[in-house]
């Protein structure tokens, strides 16, 4: 029976190829989009699917009272704590640091930068890593060995056997002892090169593993089976509080009595609840909801088209009923046909998704390793089948209700009023979803654009950021800065801890004011060229300036406007000449500048000090003029001649900023794409409804024309029908989109003044799509000659 129904269904599709193409393609597009969205979420949440017992694999996180207004969790831990964490072996079987930096590897003349992780040998056990080639234990046991991922091995050595090969890191040779499987780009444990924590390639090890104030790497721990997580966390908290860090932490800098609060996040929760997860949970939920929504919108089209087709098949249904087909049998037949369509659409949708995915990855900047795993195909087919059953229920019900005698007499029954209203309601739902999504996507796009074009407090054009090799000493960096400053096209070159707004590195300090108050404040080491290079003007006092100050002037400080308030001065002018103690050194405030955009627009500006330091001015900024490509090429050439073992790390300020806002831009693009598809689907749904409505109302249109209705009257008649759906869709969708937009923008301290523009733009777009969708059938209606009334 099922085979027979499938055969009939197949024949139905074959007999009407236009209808079949429209129905299958429409549903396939929905399936493809839903599948891609599901894949994005799945790949984010299952990046560590190859690691067993991830629920016991913990990331350590801490938060300080610090200089920021609200304590934030961070996964950057002082590396000296690793030795303390080892003492908690009752609860944790393995502990490893995970110190990651981009390191350049040279083979012959080829220099490439790789994400290099310095780890303890325990990590191999924690992640159940198995070498594809070579010996991982050996790779992590010797300081002159490294392991590389399969992709790294291929990019370094091509088809040559990598194990045993030598690579140059910072002038020293290292032996490749093992090749490991690639980790997904979105894995927490992602590396391209793996080296031991004792590796001599780790140039910063001495400092990083001794200084408690230096937060530079992560610590992962594996909880013993059956061990009490809360007790283990409490022990780590105690060890952190009592760690031999030298200086005692004053009470006012403690958080709830702790030096820093400690927590452990299980690996499956890191993306959702961990530090830097930044609303990921809502994002993944939103994307999952979006996948379901798109599928529902596509299914609605199927319901509409299939219902119209069912009404066309009244005679066939009448004959089947006459010959004894029970209502249940009719339902089974229609559901089988619906499932056939859904299966074909799912297959085509998966194919479309597979074809489009590489382009989407490029557009969205996503590198999800686990997507299009064959494991995803059976659930996709199951969802497709379920969609087929659910979407086929209404047309099957309509088929059941068709009266036999009337159908056999050739007097086709029109759909019931309730049925028509149901389908109108579904089309309204499509438009409200499309309008809401479009409007929300526009809000996010505008905010992402605003964030990347926000005035950072200085002229950000033509700023080239150079990140010198990490092993350079202060004098070497200064030497390189000086060499860069003499390049043609470079107006000035200054050094600082980090580029404003990038958020890679920050530094905090506790200072003692002249009245004895102690304040935690962010401290940005800069050289005397930095503020001038950025073109910053003082609002009181003067800047640190190379014409007056030297690198030895560590006693002078410039503060920002937020610091004026935070330090308790009545005005910027009042702060000038004030002194405070930073450790043993007395410093004097010589100038005040406006707040620079060091934080994202989600956060308030931190109070900041800018002072010359003997170290940590590890970022060089060049103010350039003339042909940007030539200046960048000259800087890269200088880099290569100076540091032949290092890949140049030179990029424009705007490129770095785009990277910072990548997630917002990605979200906006995903939403914009989904909104576009939703609008298309809704337009398509309206097209189908318009076709049906005009056919259904043909008699009415002709009779109205007969009694004198002109083109305007017919246009008004159809406009009320179709425009009404868009208007009701707008009334439902836009307020929700407005609320969602307001909620999204409320995350930002500094956000674009968006107003109702996104709502109007979405309405205009939906209205245009509706007009296009109904144009053909409206013209058909206008062209109907009244003499048709005589042919009924």
């Amino acid at each position: 029976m099922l085979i027979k129904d499938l055969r009939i269904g197949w024949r139905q599709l074959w007999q009407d190829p236009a209808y079949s193409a429209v129905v299958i393609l429409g549903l396939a597009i929905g399936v493809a989009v839903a599948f891609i969205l599901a894949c994005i979420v799945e790949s984010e949440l299952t990046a560590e699917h190859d690691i067993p017992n991830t629920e016991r694999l913990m990331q350590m996180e801490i938060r300080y009272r610090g200089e920021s207004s609200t304590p934030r969790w961070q996964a950057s831990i002082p590396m000296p704590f690793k030795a303390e964490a080892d003492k908690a072996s009752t609860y944790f079987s393995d502990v490893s640091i995970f110190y990651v930096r981009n390191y350049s590897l040279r083979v012959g003349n080829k220099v490439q930068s790789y994400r290099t992780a310095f780890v303890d040998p325990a990590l191999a056990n924690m992640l159940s890593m198995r070498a594809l080639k070579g010996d991982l234990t050996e790779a992590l046991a010797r300081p002159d060995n490294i392991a590389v991922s399969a992709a790294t091995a291929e990019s370094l050595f091509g088809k040559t056997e990598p194990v045993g090969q030598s690579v140059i890191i910072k002038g020293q040779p290292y032996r490749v002892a093992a090749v490991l499987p690639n980790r997904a780009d979105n894995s927490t444990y992602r590396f391209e090169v793996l080296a031991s924590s004792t590796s001599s390639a780790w140039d910063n090890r001495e400092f990083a593993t001794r200084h408690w104030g230096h937060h530079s790497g992560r610590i992962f721990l594996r909880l013993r089976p059956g061990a009490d997580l809360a007790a283990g966390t409490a022990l780590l908290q105690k060890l952190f509080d009592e760690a031999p860090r030298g200086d005692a932490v004053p009470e006012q800098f403690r958080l709830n009595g702790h030096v820093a609060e400690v927590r452990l996040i299980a690996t499956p929760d890191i993306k959702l609840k961990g530090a830097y997860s930044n609303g990921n949970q809502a994002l993944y939920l939103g994307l999952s909801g979006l996948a379901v929504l798109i599928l529902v919108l596509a299914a609605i089209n199927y319901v509409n088209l299939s219902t119209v087709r069912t009404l066309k098949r009244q005679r066939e249904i009448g004959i089947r009923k006459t010959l004894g087909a029970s209502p249940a049998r009719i339902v089974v037949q229609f559901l089988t046909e619906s499932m056939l369509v859904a299966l074909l659409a799912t297959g085509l949708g998966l194919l479309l998704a597979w074809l489009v995915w590489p382009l989407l990855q490029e557009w969205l900047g996503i590198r999800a390793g686990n997507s299009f795993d064959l494991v995803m195909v059976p659930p996709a087919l199951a969802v497709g089948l379920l969609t087929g059953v659910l979407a086929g229920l209404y047309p099957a019900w309509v088929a059941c209700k068709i009266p036999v005698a009337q159908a056999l007499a050739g007097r086709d029954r029109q759909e019931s009023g309730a049925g028509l209203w149901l389908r109108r309601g579904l089309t309204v739902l499509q438009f409200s979803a499309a309008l809401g999504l479009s409007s929300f996507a526009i809000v996010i796009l505008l905010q992402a654009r605003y964030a990347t074009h926000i005035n950072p407090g200085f002229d950000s054009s033509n700023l080239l950021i150079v990140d010198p090799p990490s092993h350079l000493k202060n004098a070497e960096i200064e030497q390189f800065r000086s060499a860069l400053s003499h390049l043609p096209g470079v107006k000035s070159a200054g050094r600082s801890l980090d580029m404003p707004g990038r958020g890679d590195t920050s530094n905090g300090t506790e200072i003692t004011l002249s009245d004895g108050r102690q304040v935690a404040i962010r401290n940005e080491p800069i050289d005397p060229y930095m503020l001038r290079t950025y073109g910053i003007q003082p609002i009181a006092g003067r800047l640190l300036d190379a014409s007056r100050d030297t690198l030895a002037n560590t006693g002078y400080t410039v503060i920002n406007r937020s610091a004026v308030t935070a330090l308790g001065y009545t005005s910027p002018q009042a702060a000038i000449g004030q002194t405070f103690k930073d450790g043993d050194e007395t410093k004097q405030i010589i100038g005040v500048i406006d707040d620079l955009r060091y934080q994202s627009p989600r956060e308030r500006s931190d109070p900041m000090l800018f002072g010359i330091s003997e170290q940590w001015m590890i970022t060089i900024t060049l103010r350039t003029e003339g042909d940007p490509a030539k200046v960048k090429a000259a800087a890269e050439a200088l880099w290569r001649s100076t540091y032949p073992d290092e890949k140049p790390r030179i990029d424009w300020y705007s490129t770095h900023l785009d990277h910072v806002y990548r997630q917002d831009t990605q979200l906006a693009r995903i939403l914009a794409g989904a909104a576009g598809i939703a609008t298309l689907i809704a337009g398509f749904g309206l097209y189908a409804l318009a076709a049906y409505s005009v056919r259904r109302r043909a008699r009415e249109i002709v009779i109205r024309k007969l009694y004198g209705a002109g083109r305007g009257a017919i246009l008004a008649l159809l406009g009320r029908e179709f425009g009404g759906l868009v208007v009701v869709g707008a009334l439902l969708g836009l307020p929700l989109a407005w609320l969602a937009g307001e909620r999204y923008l409320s995350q930002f301290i500094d956000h674009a003044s968006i107003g109702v523009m996104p709502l109007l733009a979405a309405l205009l777009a939906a209205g245009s799509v509706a007009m296009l969708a109904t144009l053909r059938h409206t013209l058909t209606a206008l062209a109907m000659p009244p003499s048709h009334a005589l042919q009924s």
Partner: protein
Amino acid sequence: MLKLRNIRKVHRTSDIETHALDGVDLDIEAGEYLAITGPSGCGKSTLLGILGLLDSPSEGEYWFEGQNVAGWNESRLNQLRRGRIGFIFQSFNLIDELTVAENVALALEYGDVPARERKQRVDEAMAKLGVSHRASHRPSQLSGGQQQRVAIARALVSRPSLLLADEPTGNLDSAHGDEVMRLLRDINAEGTTLIMVTHSPTHAAQASRTLRLLDGRVLVDAVAV
């Protein structure tokens, strides 16, 4: 009232040319009751369409109340038709989604009748045709005879000077058919020009004049005595 001179109507498809009307000459005076008969495909409905300003002739002159309307576009014909012509069809052509009263009112929607007068006219028309008690019903809830009464009410509500009926009894049993014919006679008796296409010789015989068509030409034009 109506004057047709050498009216031709040609239907063309890609390779076939059909002469639906082939040189029809006809004069119809106000108040006449004309029945048009003939076998299927003889051009009855085409002639009715042209007379009702629903279609334009391919050739010839059609004088409607003193104006030659041959060659007029749809928009001009539309304007001229408003309120002047009523139509009755074999299949009633009522709108299922509208109530009886709304169906009747539809004929006034595009004319010059002020809104306040419309309701009064609709009520009068429904009362005259005996369907007032069905005003809020849908056409599908009525019998065939009642549906045709509603269609006649709609045709009359604009008080047209010309009433065109295309097989008005074709979908009715004989009792309802006779009743409709009686109504049409009464309407004509009140002064409305009535042109009716019918297959029924009995019904045609009730008209004051009978036109018999064959292959698009007037075969017989007989006035009852």
